[in-house]
């Protein structure tokens, strides 16, 4: 029998694994130790026999009472490797390091995960339940926590003063913003550019990062429609300020891109 998760939601209901994972566990639980270890080595998600990380974690937690069992070492290493492969590499598109902070974030995320799993051996940790529901997203959440810590240490600005930035932009900023907008449109299909672009955005002030994310999500900067979520309303500043911050972000990205190319 598959042990249910223990974490309770606000509504007092127990969280549950997604149906695909529960079905996978039903199938996997009948495998022998050898078969499970073999299947765990299948790397490609698209390959038959691939075991989702949520399931690997279930078996690892199930084996918490087993000491020094190499079988669990196999599962552990596969999971640990997958976590590593999901963390952004600290490189630019030309291989040079774009941000040493990224390396610190990788270490932080991996060790947070490793500590959760180790601690769960002696006392059930409900926070790991989320990793059994959506492993990749739970790792993403650890990344977010690690980034916040890194940004705090870097003392990045976090807030916009209300509407102090609603004036005219300097012409060179506008020009650089427009130039970057063009670069983005022409290169966005290149995975290397997208990877660079994503890492470069991380270097911007946090409010600019959020503005760009909301633009990417398709949320309008402003709207006359009642009840429409807008970037201006969400951040509590004027539409003009949002546009200025966006253009400043693009201008910064343009500079970074030029620095990469040269």
């Amino acid at each position, binding site marked *: 029998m598959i042990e249910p998760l223990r974490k309770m939601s606000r509504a007092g209901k127990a969280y549950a694994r997604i149906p695909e994972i529960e079905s996978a566990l039903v199938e996997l639980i009948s495998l*022998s130790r050898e078969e499970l270890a073999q299947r765990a080595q299948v790397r490609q998600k698209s390959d038959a026999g691939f075991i989702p990380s949520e399931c690997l974690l279930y078996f690892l937690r199930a*084996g*918490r*009472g087993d000491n020094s*069992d190499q079988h669990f070492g196999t599962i552990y290493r596969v999971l*640990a490797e997958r976590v590593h492969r999901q963390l952004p590499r600290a490189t630019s598109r030309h291989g040079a390091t774009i941000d040493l902070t990224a390396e610190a974030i990788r270490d932080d995320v991996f060790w947070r995960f490793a500590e959760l799993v180790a601690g769960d*051996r002696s006392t059930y940790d409900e926070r790991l339940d989320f990793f059994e529901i959506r492993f990749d997203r739970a790792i993403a959440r650890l990344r977010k926590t690690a980034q916040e810590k890194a940004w705090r240490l870097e003392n990045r600005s976090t807030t916009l003063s209300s509407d102090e930035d609603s004036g005219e932009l300097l012409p060179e900023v506008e020009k650089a913003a427009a130039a970057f907008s063009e670069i983005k449109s022409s290169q966005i299909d290149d995975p290397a550019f997208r990877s660079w672009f994503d890492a470069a955005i991380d270097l911007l002030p946090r409010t600019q990062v959020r503005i760009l994310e909301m633009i990417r999500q398709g949320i309008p900067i402003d709207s006359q429609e009642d009840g429409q979520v807008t970037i201006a309303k*969400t951040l509590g500043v004027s539409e003009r300020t949002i546009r200025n911050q966006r253009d400043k972000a693009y201008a910064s990205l343009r500079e970074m891109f030029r620095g990469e190319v040269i």
Partner: protein
Amino acid sequence: MTNEERPSLEDVLDEFVTEVDTGRETLERYLVAFPAFANELVDLARELARPIESFAGPLTDKDINTINEAWRHYEAAAPRNLVDPWATLTVDQLRQAARVLGVPRQVVAAFRERRVLPSSVSDRFLKRISTALGASAEALRDWMAPSMGEVARSYKANERPLETVQVTLERILLDAGVPPERRKDLMSDTD
């Protein structure tokens, strides 16, 4: 104000992560419902949407060393050896415990054989059974808990394992013929 009325940031982010879809529509719904957490929600949405292609190349030496170190840490974190609270109990003691609890002996046996689903046993019942046995409730709970460990131990064989079936306390009581009122009383968490 209840937990449901004033959720913590962690609660809200937990729920967001477990939504079926974490795209624009869900994000907007959360931004409307929890405006105070807008920054964190947008930050999380960005992380969830981040285009991370699983790196396919060889891991660096540093990565490999880190994994090895983490595994050693995991090995060292093995739980203390569980003491079997049932090991020293005689048949007479088990019989007596069943009498005190007012249940058929097979109910007590089900606990000893770890056939009871831990989540189905109230703290109150556990306290009563531990008192009847003269054992510690924590030791009993811990002993019940590694139900998944039972599955894991069955992996020591290289054959397909026997299915370890754990059932709810209610089912155990039903199968033992305990009448409904008594079952209700035994399973209740309040005196």
